[in-house]
């Protein structure tokens, strides 16, 4: 794999992670009852974990 292709793969992975993270964080914000700093921190963390799992699941299903 050329450096350029590797760079492109990394960028695509980062963009997909960010897209999942944004969606999951917004869902968290909608579903919690009271918005506070602690809730935001916990939400950002679990959204990151969820985004990793979502990307892994998507890759497992599509095989890429």
């Amino acid at each position, binding site marked *: 794999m050329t450096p350029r292709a590797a760079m492109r793969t990394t960028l695509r992975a980062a963009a997909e992670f960010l897209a999942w993270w944004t969606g999951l964080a917004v*869902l968290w*914000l*909608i*579903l919690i*009852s009271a*918005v506070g700093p602690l809730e935001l921190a916990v939400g950002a963390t679990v959204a990151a974990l969820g985004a990793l799992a979502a990307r892994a699941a998507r890759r497992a299903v*599509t*095989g890429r």
Partner: protein
Amino acid sequence: MNGWILAATVALGAGAGATLWGVATGPLRRRVVAQNLSTALACLVLLLLAQGYDRPSYVDLALVLALLGPVGTLVFARLLADDLAEDPPRAWGPTYLVVGAGAAVVTALCVATGPSRASAKLLVVGALLIGGNVVASRALSGGFSGLRRG
């Protein structure tokens, strides 16, 4: 007693009676469809009751049911796949009726709530309810039978 609770009572009385009759009698293809519609109907009733009793946190019950109802139907679709393949259900009329009722109820609740995080939550529940029901109905009628992998 207010309009929301009245609407919930009517939906529960008429809809649950009809779906109970459908689940308890008739051929398999009608029973699975009635089971699927009963969860969607219960979800709608929970939404209406949450508004009627002015307890927004009760919406969580509808959220859980909107998520787990179609999942339960998918389990039935999988377990009964062989029987359903011989005699597949064709019940898009009732499905779209419940989908339309769901859209109407969620719209009315959003108007009553006003633009806020609570109405966004209602929209999420509505999307899960409608999307889940369409997917579950399609699975019951064999729409995904060719989809074994990926």
